[in-house]
């Protein structure tokens, strides 16, 4: 249990390190809000007075502390155009989360059956699936998204090319608008999942306990499900955790190709508009989400693998 508390401690530590990096970048970038709050012809004294009133001339640690306090209480400020950042982010968060969730589901739905079906080494299924896995994971995510959208959406009109349909307008349309983006993200990760899970299954099939079960007369198929699956599940949990984290990160490209209003595309527009504060807030938010996800996945591994329970 002591290790659990240590592991839990990494979340605030991560947030500290990331927020320090972000805040250092923000405070060292040129210009501050006096450039766009005060009129252009404001004198230097007026600027100095403004800075003192707002608190921009405070020493670095104090400003960092107030930055952290603001972040943790949800006061994420305004963009230069006057939009409330927290409202913007919170309205876009569900899109990205549903994208990531759907990608995870699709990845598992592709990877697990293929692993079971292509277990035999050197079979045609094995070679075909491995070859396609290697090829797909050599392409960047946006390229897969582009190809899928041009093939399935534009040519064949099976799915919408862009835009997000909220579930309030019909859950079928909502899933349809998310399907292609999720598929692009998940093709890459399902290849990795399949390779690792299948290897774990093959290794488990050769372990002594499986041999014993087979010697006792269990059929190969039943041994596959009863003996080999359980030890391979922790690996699936591990890579699911990593993939979920990567989906959040990779959503930037996919959301841009399919024009989904999510966190990723917000990050891209922050980068294009050189909005350091918005980008920094998003980085910290993403770091928080990913550290929580990896905590969850480690808990799942602990649960699934009896050897790791102390």
């Amino acid at each position, binding site marked *: 249990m002591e290790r659990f508390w240590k592991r839990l401690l990494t979340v605030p530590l991560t947030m500290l390190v990331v927020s320090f990096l972000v805040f250092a970048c923000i405070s060292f970038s040129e210009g501050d809000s006096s450039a766009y709050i005060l009129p252009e012809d404001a004198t230097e004294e007026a600027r100095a007075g403004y800075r003192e009133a707002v608190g921009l001339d405070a020493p670095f640690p104090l400003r960092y502390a107030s930055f952290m306090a603001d972040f943790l209480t949800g006061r994420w400020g305004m963009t230069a155009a006057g939009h409330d950042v927290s409202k913007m982010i919170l309205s876009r968060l569900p899109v990205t989360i549903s994208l990531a969730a759907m990608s995870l589901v699709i990845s598992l739905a592709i990877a697990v059956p293929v692993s079971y079906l292509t277990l035999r080494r050197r079979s045609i299924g094995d070679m075909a699936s491995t070859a396609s896995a290697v090829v797909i994971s050599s392409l960047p*995510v946006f390229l897969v998204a582009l190809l899928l959208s041009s093939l399935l959406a534009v040519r064949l009109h099976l799915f919408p090319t862009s835009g997000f349909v909220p579930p309030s307008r019909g859950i079928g349309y909502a899933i349809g608008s998310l399907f292609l983006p999720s598929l692009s993200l998940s093709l890459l990760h399902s290849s990795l999942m399949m390779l690792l899970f299948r*290897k774990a299954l093959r290794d488990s099939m050769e372990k002594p306990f499986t041999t014993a079960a087979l010697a006792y007369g269990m059929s190969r198929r039943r041994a596959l499900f009863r003996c080999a699956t359980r030890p391979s599940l922790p690996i699936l949990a591990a890579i699911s955790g990593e993939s979920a984290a990567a989906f959040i990160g990779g959503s930037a490209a996919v959301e841009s190709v399919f024009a989904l209003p999510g966190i990723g595309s917000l990050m891209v527009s922050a980068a294009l508009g050189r909005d350091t504060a918005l*980008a920094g807030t998003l980085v910290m938010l993403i770091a928080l989400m990913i550290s929580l996800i990896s905590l969850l996945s480690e808990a799942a591994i602990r649960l699934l693998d009896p050897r790791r329970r102390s």
Partner: protein
Amino acid sequence: MRRAGIIILIAVLFFSLSFGGEGEVDAAMRLLGPSSSHPFGTDALGRDLLERTARGAFVSISIGAISLLISAAVGTVLAYAYSLPRFPRSALLALADTFKAVPPMVLALFFAAFAGPGIAKMAIAVSIAHISDISRTAHSRTAALLNEEFIEAERSIGAGSARIFFRHILPHVAPYLALQGVSVFLSAVMAESTLSFLGCGVPVDTPSLGALLAEARPVMMNAPWMVAFPAAVLLLIGLSLELIALSFSESDPSAQRSHKRKLVRVAEVSADRKA
């Protein structure tokens, strides 16, 4: 499998070096399909796509190479730190692990927001995002070596940490760091092409494979060669790096020849490599 990867990579590099160029703007020859004078066709401004694709391949590969060098340098420094006797190793490991929470793409976008587009910033961002993997590799290899008796013998005759590091630890750790660098290389190529596609990567009008794909996007349906050729080159680069990296990892499909591999269980195929 590894040899195939290396051969493909060298072939792409050779191709990019021999055909690379800016391409002349010629408005009369816009959006022509592949022909004998323009083997890859022309783009929307009439520039020869072969030249631009080759130059773009060179840009992408060089960004990957820069990231590889940066990550190798960082790994070397970390390995030296881990070899010092009274160094707080677990603290540094935990510190490096905190960066695992930021995917390479997100960090690169943040750097682009903070300091504008640029090749060096992208390379640095990708290296920082992978610092957790680099530090783990450096730590495990250094720790494995430090327990050996000959290190203890060296220390007992008064060798300093620097000498031990340069004579013994560095030659052992270097191949593993290089291998880790291949993974970073791949991640950098993917991140750069994605960023250039989105418009925050290479400076405007510099041909990079991602930028070429961004140019191709509006005319994708009418001029499929503009997507096909950069995509094919990108696929080849990614494939070669993937083959090299996979050949050292556990999930090598051609595992029959494992007795030939000296570096075993080194590279973990990491899912967040491509963000």
